[in-house]
C-alpha cells in the first residue's frame, strides 16, 4: 500500500466516522464534538464540506447551524413530510413579535423590546421563548440598571432552518431601511443582529443570575399581554 492509498483510506474512514456521528445525533455537533474521533490533524472543515456535497441531492442534507452541523431532511420534501400532529402549543402573537424583535435586534434588552412594541412585555412572554429554547439571556448591558440582554440560540437557528443569524428573512432590506436601530433618529449606523460572543457593552451573567431586572419586576405588575 503506498502513501496515497494509505492517505485515502484514512480520509474515507474520517468521512465515515463523521457520517456515523452526525447521523446518530439529534442535535447539531461542532468540531469539538467530532475531533476526538478523527485521525490526528484531520481537516474537519474540509471533511464536512465534502460530506455536505455528497448529501447535497439526497433526501437528507447536512446543514450548518451556527458553528455546528446536523443531518436534516431535505427542505424541498417539506410538503411530503409535514407533520401537524407534533404541533407544539402555538405561540401567542405577543411572543412571536417579541421573538422576531429579539432575533433582528439582538443583543436587546427588555426595555428596547418594549420600545419597539410600544407596550410592556410580560415576564411570561420571555419565559415561553426561553422555555422553547429559542431565546437566552446573553449578559447584562453596561448601562445604569445593568439590564439583561437577550439573544437567540442555536436551537432557534435549527428550528427555523437558518444557517446563521444573518440569514434571517428580509434582514438586509430592514437594515437598509434603517429599521433595525433601537433608537432614533434614523440617520446613524444600523447595527447588525449578532448572536455570538458578548459585545463590548455587555457583561457576562453571573452563574446564579436569575435574570431579574428592577424594571421587569415593576412591569410584571401590569402584564398587559400575559396569557
Amino acid at each position: 500500500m503506498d502513501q496515497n492509498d494509505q492517505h485515502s483510506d484514512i480520509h474515507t474512514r474520517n468521512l465515515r466516522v463523521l457520517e456515523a456521528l452526525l447521523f446518530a445525533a439529534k442535535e447539531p455537533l461542532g468540531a469539538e464534538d467530532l475531533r476526538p474521533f478523527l485521525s490526528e490533524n484531520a481537516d474537519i472543515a474540509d471533511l464536512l464540506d465534502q460530506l455536505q456535497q455528497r448529501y447535497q441531492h439526497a433526501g437528507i442534507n447536512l446543514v450548518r447551524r451556527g458553528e455546528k452541523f446536523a443531518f436534516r431532511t431535505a427542505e424541498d420534501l417539506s410538503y411530503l413530510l409535514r407533520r401537524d400532529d407534533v404541533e407544539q402549543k402555538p405561540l401567542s402573537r405577543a411572543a412571536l413579535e417579541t421573538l422576531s424583535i429579539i432575533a433582528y435586534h439582538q443583543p436587546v434588552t427588555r426595555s428596547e423590546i418594549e420600545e419597539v412594541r410600544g407596550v410592556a412585555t410580560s415576564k411570561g412572554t420571555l419565559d415561553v421563548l426561553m422555555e422553547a429554547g429559542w431565546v437566552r439571556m446573553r449578559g447584562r448591558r453596561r448601562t445604569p440598571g445593568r439590564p439583561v440582554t437577550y439573544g437567540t440560540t442555536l436551537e432557534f437557528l435549527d428550528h427555523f432552518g437558518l444557517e446563521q443569524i444573518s440569514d434571517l428573512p428580509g434582514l438586509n432590506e430592514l437594515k437598509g431601511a434603517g429599521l433595525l436601530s433601537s433608537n432614533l433618529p434614523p440617520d446613524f449606523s444600523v447595527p447588525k443582529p449578532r448572536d455570538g460572543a458578548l459585545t463590548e457593552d455587555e457583561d457576562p451573567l453571573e452563574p446564579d443570575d436569575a435574570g431579574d431586572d428592577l424594571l421587569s419586576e415593576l412591569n410584571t405588575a401590569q402584564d398587559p399581554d400575559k396569557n
Partner: protein
Amino acid sequence: MCPNMPMQDEEFTQQPEPRHSVMYVDVKGYEGPLDLLLDLARKQKVDLAHISVLSLAEQYLGFIETLKERRIEVAADYLVMAAWLAYLKSRLMVPHDDEDEEPSGEEMAALLQFRLKRLEAMRDAAGKLVSRPRLGREIHHRGDPETIITTKTNQWQATYYDLLRAYVIQREKSFPQDYAVKQRTVWSLSEAEEILERLIGQSLDWAPLHAYLADYLASDEERVTALASSFTASLEMVRQGQIEMRQSSPFSPLMVRRRAAKTPDDN
C-alpha cells in the same frame, strides 16, 4: 399530514378584520397603543411612508374619546399616547420656531412614522419566520437517534492510613467500657470571694495571694480553678474597696491585704 394551516400562522397571513366602526372595537384586542395606531394607519390604505400623521393623530384621539364616552376603561399607556399625539397635533399646526429647543412637529411625526414602520416590519418578519419550513414539522431530525452508551466504571479510592484507622476504630469500640466520669472541682466566684474574705481576715499586712491559697494549691486539679477564681474575686473586692493589691513586676507574687479604712457602707 393535513393541509390546514395551524393557528399561529393565520395571525400573520390574515390581515386584521376590517373594522367598520370604531364603536365595535374593543381596546383589549390591541397590543398597546402603537398596535392601535398601526391598525388605524393601515386603514388609510397607503404606504406608511405616505400616511398623514395629522389625520392619524386625530383618528386616534377620536377613538379614545369614543371609548371614554362609552365609559370603556382605557389603559394608561393609551392615554399617554393620546396626550403625546395631542401635543404632536399642536406642534404640527404651529409654524416651527428655530429658537425652539423642543423637537419640531415634523420631527415628532417622523419619529412616530418610524416607530410604526419598525413595528410593522417586525410583524412581517415574525410572519416570514414562522412560515419557514420548521424543524419537527416540515424538516426532521433523526427520528430514532442512536444514544451514546456510557459505561461507567468506578475506581475506588482509599489510602493505607484510612484502612488502618478504620481497623483500629473498629477494634477499640470493643474495649470494655469502664471509664467513669470524674467530678471536677470548680471554684465559683462567690465561693472564691468567701474563702478570700475568710483567709485575709482583718490582716493589714501584705501577703502573697498564693500563700493564702497554699492549702488549696496542694491539689493539682484545683490549682488552676483556685487561682483563676480567687484572682477574679480579688479584683472585685478591690473594686469594692475591701482589699488592696500590688505587684512589683510582671509575674512576681501578687500581694494582698485588708484595706485600712473601711468604707462606711461595707460590712
